[in-house]
């Protein structure tokens, strides 16, 4: 046994797996704890050998960036070790994500809560950007909530470093609903602005409680975006017509944000508008966003420990966290497909209850005596 193997074994002994909490495309997630302190952790066991190039790309990315990023609002990678043929990532254990909370209809969001979540998201993102890392998959599902209420950016499976000269980057990143138009137009050179667009979409979703731009396909995503924010002109966004995959999708007027976000403050709409500017260079940066008047206006952002928690928070985490986002398009479609069916069953239920009450209504109407009125 050489030194490396010995070191690995020592590490392996430090952590123990308790139970499986989720399984995804390329990983199984276990709940575990540190053997000495009993600290709860999540152990992500990455399946090796299924992929013909060896390790899955997103596992490499996750390890590469999480080893370097250590911040209050970024998920912490405690350790990495291998067991037999598997690679294990020991991560912070977080029991909820923002999507769960947004979907929990029993929770009421105060404006201060949204402000607090936004501030924490932007702080985590600013830290990534300061360290030259693009996250490239921001969505409520990837913003995890710790038990003390702190929000942590997770899932760096699509992250990459930016500002390296001359390299093309792929445009097939970011879950579709949160993907900025420059990526939909196939742009291969982009920067931190892509993450800020996602933050804008998340901000809107926090206020609306439903996804803001739910496109059904890449084409439809462009249409949905332009319908909500108006078709960009050459003046709004110089040069966008020359992007590789540019297609005209029709002219839509720009409706004021106020129409949809009726309850938002002027500051909130101003920040939202700045996150959703078409021209990436004009889009607000994470650092500037944190200094936006929205955050300084009253009410103060809620203290993390007082933020609302989901009742399902203690239930096992949904599997998406383990899903390595290997195929962005299918995961987007699956989420989309689920939503209408869920709402349609609700509608059916409502109809059924109406039918029952009709019996009463009808019997009253028929008891009246209309025999002395002639039919015209």
């Amino acid at each position, binding site marked *: 046994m050489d030194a490396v193997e010995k070191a690995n074994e020592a590490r392996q002994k430090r952590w123990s797996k308790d139970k499986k909490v989720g399984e995804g495309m390329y990983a199984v997630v276990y709940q575990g704890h540190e053997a000495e302190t009993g600290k709860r952790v999540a152990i992500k066991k990455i399946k090796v050998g299924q992929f013909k190039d060896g390790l899955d790309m997103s596992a490499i990315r996750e390890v590469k960036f999480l080893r370097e990023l250590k911040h209050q609002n970024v998920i912490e990678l405690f350790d990495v070790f291998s067991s037999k043929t598997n690679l294990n990532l020991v991560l912070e254990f977080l029991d909820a994500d923002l999507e769960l909370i947004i979907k929990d209809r029993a929770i009421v969001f105060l404006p201060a809560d949204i402000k607090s979540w936004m501030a924490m998201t932007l702080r985590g993102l600013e830290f990534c950007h300061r360290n030259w890392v693009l996250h490239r998959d921001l969505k409520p599902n990837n913003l995890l909530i710790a038990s003390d209420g702190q929000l942590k950016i997770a899932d760096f499976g699509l992250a990459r470093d930016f500002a*390296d000269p001359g390299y093309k980057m792929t445009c097939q990143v970011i879950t579709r609903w949160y993907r900025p138009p420059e990526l939909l137009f196939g742009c291969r050179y982009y920067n931190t602005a892509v993450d800020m667009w996602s933050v804008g979409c998340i901000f809107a979703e926090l206020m609306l409680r439903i996804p803001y731009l739910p496109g059904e396909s890449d084409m439809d995503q462009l249409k949905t975006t332009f319908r909500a924010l108006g078709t960009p002109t050459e003046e709004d966004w110089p040069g966008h017509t*020359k992007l590789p995959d540019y297609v005209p999708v029709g002219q839509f007027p720009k409706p004021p944000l106020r129409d949809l976000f009726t309850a938002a403050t002027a500051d909130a709409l101003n920040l939202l508008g700045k996150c959703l500017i078409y021209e990436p260079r004009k889009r607000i940066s994470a650092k500037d966003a944190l200094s936006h008047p929205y955050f300084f206006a009253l009410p103060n952002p809620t203290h993390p420990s007082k933020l609302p928690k989901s009742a399902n928070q203690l239930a096992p985490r949904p599997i998406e966290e383990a899903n390595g986002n290997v195929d962005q398009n299918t995961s987007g479609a699956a989420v989309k497909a689920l939503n209408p069916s869920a709402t349609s069953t609700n509608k059916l239920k409502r109809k059924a209850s109406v039918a029952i009450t009709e019996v009463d209504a009808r019997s009253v109407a028929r008891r009246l005596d209309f025999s002395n009125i002639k*039919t015209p």
Partner: protein
Amino acid sequence: MSRAGGLLKGTVIRKSGFQSTQQSRSATPQVASSSTSITANIPLGGGVKDATGKTAEYSVHLSLLLKSMEDQCPVCKSDRYLNPKLRLLVSACYHKMCESCIDRLFTLGPAPCPICNKTLRKLAFMPQTFEDLGVEKEVAVRRRLAKDFNKKREDFPDLKTYNDYLEDVEDITFNLINDIDIAKTEARIAKFRQDNAAIIEANIQRDESYASSLREKEEGERREREETARRLAQEEEEQRILREIERQQLIDKLEHSDKDARKLVAKSRAERLKQQQARAAALGTTTQRDASKAIRTRAAQSTIPDPPHVPLQDDWYAYEDKFTLRSGGYYDPISEAVRRDADGIMRAGGYVVEDIWERAIRTAVAGLDILPLSGFPIKEATPQATAARDVDVEMVGVPG
């Protein structure tokens, strides 16, 4: 105000039915003493507009299926025995016809009604809601009028003018139902609509917001009920488990302890009683909360105050005191092609060449304080580090 037969027109909603409508004119639609009971109907447009949408088609209803076995199409005389799928629809002139007759007669365009010769169109047929077609017509007329005549007590200066208005509406309704002076009545409606366009529009919006607030309230109450039921079930389960544990403990004690068994039992009983009381007290405080209060208490219970926003909470340092970017750019053959960017693709995507230079220089100066790895610790670290800090960073980028 002329009125045919001196009748007050009946409404379907008032439970008194048509008998009561045979009253003399002196009974105004509304007297001050009973105003509340009548105005209660008004938000729903005199009861005709159904805010809840809970109306069903007449013959489709299950309890009526038996009765509707006698249904017969007056045109083709086919009945439910001959055609189990028979569905009678009502024409604009209030004559029943089965679907196949309608298809046969009106597919090729407008045609005269086989009963009264009025020209009809296929699309104007509607499903029947009421057994009596007279009621059907009255409901349709009232529904139509309620759309425009939606003024309320608040829109009038005094009760008298409001009552006059209600009488006017009833007049028009009566005329339309009994086909009296149709042309003149239509003109009256059109005039009213023109005169009151703004008020009508405002009232429509008011009704809509009322209906939606009603829906929201219902939804909230339902959620609250579910929540309470869930909590109660959970509490019951917890209590059951507790009782089980206590019982087990008592048995264990009786088994192992050498104290008097009777004393042990009495002691555990007293303990249980105390716990129950404590639980009941706690329960009292928890059940007082309801969903709407929970929001406010969450904000009010702020034992921890919400601190004002601090943009960045870590010790942000990006070495910006150690370098400045040259305004003229750098000689950089690697990014040359990207920088030329004839088509503006880079610009449109938001890629900034300055980012590349900043990254290169920032990472370079970040490394200046760090000693090279040498395998053993160096004691004299400080002079070297301070020397490194003084390096002119402009040198990092070769001027081009």
